């Protein structure tokens, strides 16, 4: 989801000079805050220091990609839960 938002922002920047102007004048945080990033990402993306918009975009890509990979890891089931389906696990718990 966050990557889709970033993709759209970078796509927009090729035809909307407002995005690059906001970056060049230190107001990229205003643009970022209008988008649907999480609070943490919004804060990080608003404070990236880069020499150009293109460099900013690549650094933003790294942050967003890392954040999405962390999310995926968090969503994985814990190995402690085992591999039993929910119903079977509930039956086992009842029997015990």
């Amino acid at each position, binding site marked *: 989801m966050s990557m889709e938002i970033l993709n759209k922002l970078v*796509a927009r920047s090729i035809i909307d000079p407002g995005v690059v102007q906001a970056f*060049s004048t230190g107001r990229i945080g205003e643009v970022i805050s209008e988008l649907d990033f999480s609070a943490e990402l919004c804060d990080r993306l608003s404070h990236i220091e880069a020499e150009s918009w293109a460099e900013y975009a690549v650094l933003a890509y790294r942050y967003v990609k890392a954040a999405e990979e962390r999310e995926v890891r968090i969503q994985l089931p814990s190995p402690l839960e085992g591999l039993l389906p929910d119903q079977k696990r509930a039956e086992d718990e009842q029997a015990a």
Partner: protein
Amino acid sequence: MIPITREERQWFLRSLAQGLIDYLGVQEPPVPVEDLLKNPPPLYDSDFGVVDMYSNLWDATFARPPSQRGSIFVRIDLDPEERRFALARETLSALITSKQGRAMGLFDLLLPHLRESAEYFASHLLAPATMLKAYHEQGGRARGISKTFAIPPFVALQRWEDFHAIDQTS
């Protein structure tokens, strides 16, 4: 400029291509690249143009004569699919050297790998993942891509392989 990986550069190029597709508002292939160059976004009025040339040296090349509009000079006798790919490829040079492109920092990011970047950009401008996905879901096959998207067969094959290997997982 910070060092960047090929994956990062390709992501950036896909996003640029998508920006132009969004501007055109097209949902289905073929993407009208020549219309884009002849009726560009206002930001690129002095950067996009097409001039037909007789040449045996190259298929197309972008040039910006001093104080004049930049244009892509394209061989007049190319096949339609080859012409579209050559125009799409040279569009990246037009973007990089434009006022907006320079303001974005495209020059430093893309110049070291210009040829590879331009071909990658062109293949995604003419056959974006969203359209390939829709084509695939409607039962489209590899052999029909070249005709449907109006791109050269070697580009069609490469995009189809990339689509199955990468695009669907990104």
